[in-house]
């Protein structure tokens, strides 16, 4: 039980896929323009990561060592297809905005990385915990980036049509933050902040 909790917890900060392991960056930078997008992207990744971890952990005794990568990719690709078609059917505007990033979950290094490094070596329950933890860690960073970028770039955060907080009267929002360079700036500064906090704690 403690082991499972440890597996879950490690993904949140210590082995956070984005800030610490530096994998799965592309999608994180691209979809974090709006909080709403990050929520959908985060849930898609959690779903695919957890489900593929379960299946891969189940079939791990019968998978031949040499053919494992193609087998993992096919498992992941089927779950991504489920997400792809579901979003397309029920949330067309979101699908339109996330665009290429949904199919690209297949090659998101977080998912294949966890399949290879964890799910193919550990029992099912621990793999579920690992998938959930890493997925939540990913979503968490995505959400923070989305909030920073949307708030500073457009002056307000809008989720499902409701405005959560509004700074518009106080300053002229720099549009650059919701455009491409803003993603790099935000992520670089976020990493720097984490390093700074860790160094202060270590002292």
């Amino acid at each position, binding site marked *: 039980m403690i082991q499972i909790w440890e597996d879950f917890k490690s993904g949140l900060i210590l082995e956070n896929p984005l800030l610490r392991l530096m994998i799965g960056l592309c999608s994180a930078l691209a979809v974090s323009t709006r909080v709403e997008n990050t929520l959908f992207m985060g849930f898609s990744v959690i779903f695919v990561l957890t489900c593929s971890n379960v299946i891969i952990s189940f079939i791990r005794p019968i998978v031949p060592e040499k053919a494992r990568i193609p087998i993992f990719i096919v498992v992941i690709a089927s779950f991504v297809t489920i997400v792809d078609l579901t979003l397309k059917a029920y949330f067309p505007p979101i699908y339109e905005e996330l665009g290429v990033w949904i199919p690209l979950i297949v*090659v998101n290094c977080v998912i294949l990385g966890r399949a290879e490094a964890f799910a193919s070596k550990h029992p099912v329950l621990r793999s579920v915990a690992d998938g959930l933890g890493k997925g939540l860690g990913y979503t968490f960073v995505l959400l923070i980036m989305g909030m920073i970028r949307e708030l500073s770039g457009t002056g307000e955060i809008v989720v499902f049509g409701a405005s959560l907080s509004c700074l518009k009267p106080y300053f002229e929002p720099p549009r650059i933050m919701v455009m491409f*360079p803003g993603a790099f700036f935000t992520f*670089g500064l976020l990493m720097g902040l984490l390093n700074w906090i860790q160094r202060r704690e270590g002292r």
Partner: protein
Amino acid sequence: MERYFLLFLAAFLINNILLIRFIGLCPFFGVSSKVETSVGMSMTVIFVMTMATMVCWLVWNFLLIPLNLGEFLYIPAFILVIAALVQFVEIVLRKVSPTLFKAMGIYLPLITTNCAVLAAATESVKPGFFKLNIQYGYAIPEALVYTLGIAIGFTLAIVMFAAIRERMEVAPVPRPLKGYPIAFIMAGLASLAFMGFSGLFGL
């Protein structure tokens, strides 16, 4: 002829795959610490990407469309084509040209999970996936020119970035920002520069 030139330019500069669209960032930060390795990586990307688009074009037009499976199976089909192709290229290169194999060897397995290859193949083959401002007919010469543009754009960005990062090693940087964080901020500045190309020739 002019249309091909514009198509190339759109893929190469205006929608630069790394700095404007964030696709394929993992190798961008992973192998861009030395100019030499970044050149090796980008040559491999040009090679694999062009081949992958060609094969995916054939699979899409002669297999998925006649069987009416395009919408449902394009993700698994394309990623399997790419994975198989990379394996195949590796085997052939080892026999035919050991020197080239030595130069590309370490980068080849990495490329299977490089989202840039999957993105380039899907965009240039599947209609309605990515909207360009020019007319694009999804014929094979257009698909090739477009993919080549993407691949050479990748090369330009990664080699340029490696050159900057080599000098960055000796520059005085605030301690918490050393290493990756400053690289991200520099990428943001480079991306800012590339945004200046948008609107070129009305694209």
